[in-house]
């Protein structure tokens, strides 16, 4: 267990280091941030002054060394655009994104699992074929397109749900959430569905494949031979087995949920860190991109760790030391 966590930690550090270098120098290749920051009316003198103030006048490797020095002292830099600590900016926006991704994940499971289970247990039935055919649509349509369609249908057309934004938030245990009020749920419903769409198809597929495989296993036959009811066999014996791949894959996919929220957050004006990142990328706000990458890597490593713990809880055969290979 200890070695396992250490291994994960080492991995995280390695990823962070690699990403740092890539992002730092990558942003420099894209362009000079000064042109995205400075007001166009400003003259050359002012441009030079500002570049000096932000440290952008020095060669890139020198900027990198300065960054490393400050990072060692716990200062990951200030946003060029916002002037505040980049990491603080991100952490401030993170709860909104996590909330969105979390609801999407729940939706994916709640909708995808029963459908996939059904399709797997009755592979030949018409409904199953229909489910599978429709599930393809889930990852065929670009997210941004579906997002606007959802707004047009449910907000503009039917007027059931608000089109944009996040509901009122309350803070519990230091975590901002909007999920404690009905209004919050109304706001999160559409973006979460939009984000979940891809994952619903994925869960359907995983559940179907898992159920098909599990249904052929001897232990299912043995469970029937014991005289167990169909519901217990499906609900306990099969479900618990197919949850194993689903949990693993969804754990990995949580990352892509957070990433794809860039698109969804833009469409639904959701105040999360995805939008902050997109803004940072368009404005070359390097400290924010760097901080985002760090936060996201830490987030993933934590989630992967959690997934592995859940995995080993679900599958007693797995010992944590082996889970990495």
């Amino acid at each position: 267990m200890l070695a396992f966590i250490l291994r994960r930690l080492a991995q995280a550090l390695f990823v962070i280091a690699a990403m740092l270098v890539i992002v730092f120098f990558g942003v420099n290749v894209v362009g000079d941030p000064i042109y995205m920051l400075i007001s166009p009316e400003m003259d050359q003198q002012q441009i030079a002054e500002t570049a000096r103030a932000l440290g952008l006048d020095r060669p890139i490797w020198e900027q990198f060394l300065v960054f490393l020095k400050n990072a060692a002292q716990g200062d990951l830099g200030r946003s060029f655009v916002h002037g505040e600590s980049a990491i603080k900016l991100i952490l401030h926006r993170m709860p909104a994104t996590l909330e969105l991704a979390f609801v999407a994940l729940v939706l994916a499971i709640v909708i995808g699992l029963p459908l996939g289970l059904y399709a797997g247990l009755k592979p030949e039935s018409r409904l199953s074929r229909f489910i599978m055919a429709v599930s393809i649509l889930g990852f065929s349509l670009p997210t941004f397109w579906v997002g606007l369609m959802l707004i047009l249908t449910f907000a503009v057309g039917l007027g059931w749900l608000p089109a944009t934004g996040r509901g009122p938030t309350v803070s519990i245990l230091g975590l901002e959430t909007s999920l404690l009020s009905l209004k919050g749920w109304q706001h999160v419903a559409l973006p979460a569905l939009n984000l979940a769409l891809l994952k619903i198809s994925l869960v359907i597929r995983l559940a179907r494949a898992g159920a098909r495989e599990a249904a052929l296993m001897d232990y299912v036959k043995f469970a029937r031979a014991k005289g167990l009811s169909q519901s217990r066999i499906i609900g306990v014996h099969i479900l618990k087995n197919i949850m194993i791949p689903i949990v693993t894959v969804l754990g990995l996919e949580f990352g892509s949920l957070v990433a794809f929220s860039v698109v969804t957050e833009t469409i639904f004006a959701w105040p999360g860190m995805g939008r902050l990142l997109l803004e940072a990328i368009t404005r070359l706000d390097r400290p924010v991109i760097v901080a985002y990458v760090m936060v996201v890597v830490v987030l993933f490593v934590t989630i992967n760790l959690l997934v592995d713990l859940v995995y080993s809880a679900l599958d007693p055969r797995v010992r944590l030391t082996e889970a990495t290979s």
Partner: protein
Amino acid sequence: MAPVLEVSGLKTHFFTRAGTVKSVDGVSFHVERGEVLGLVGESGSGKSVTGFSVMGLIDPPGRIVEGSIKLNGKELVGLDEEGFREVRGREVAMIFQDPMMTLNPVLRVDTQMIEAVTAHDKVSHKAARERSRDALAKVGIPSPEERLNAYPHQFSGGMRQRVAIAIALLHRPPLIICDEPTTALDVTIQSQILAEMQGLCADTGTALVWITHDLGVVAGLADRIAVMYAGRIVETGAVDPVLDTPLHPYTSGLLGSLPAEGEPGAPLRQIRGSTPSLARLPQGCAFAARCDYVQADCLALAPDVTPFPGARGVRCHHPLNLAGVAA
């Protein structure tokens, strides 16, 4: 006294895209109370499908096409899933070949045993657990209380098979169908299980259908024997006469191919060719193509069962060793 199990004219076919697979094609046999019936035959001859038919575990594209299965006088063919569910585990239990696969790897042993108890008996969780523990103790698992909390992968193969046996015994069914339960185990462990089963059945009067391809095991365990070939029982009778004076050329061939029987180093008697596909059985006797004694009528007409004294029967136009059978 009525037999525990009476199967007659059972036909279980699988309707696959490649054609109809007649896995079981007119099988009849019976098992008396407390008796051990050895069902032997080569791979794919339909032994397991026969067992599953009795349990009602044939799934599409398979179907029982014809015949009757009477368990304690009650007809099983035509029962719905719920009807079968009530029978399974209580009146007939089954143990499978691969002990690694029969227990659900992600559920603890107690869960899997307790659910088997409560599937038929409305008892408290505590009572069910006690019963499970007693069952484990009975099959010779040391410190059963702790072992209940373990997961299957923490058991060795032999122990897992014992857990499966314990589960089968939970409701003291009058009949247990054992589908090659020791094939995957080592000789010494196989002996342990066989000894265990022998003892338990003697104590409880449970009848067994012991499916295997190992004639040696049947010889040591069974009272009667039924030899299957290509979906049919080609020969039945008490163990001794069948093994000593086989009537069917196939039985005889099987016995002759056993290395233990010949002089070391001497060529073994071999049955030429291999088992025919059950989807394309020939018109006549299914064994004709491999039979050393084949005659014209064998190719034309599938033989019926010819009864012989001592409750023996053989499906052959030209049985061997007729002299050895007391008239």
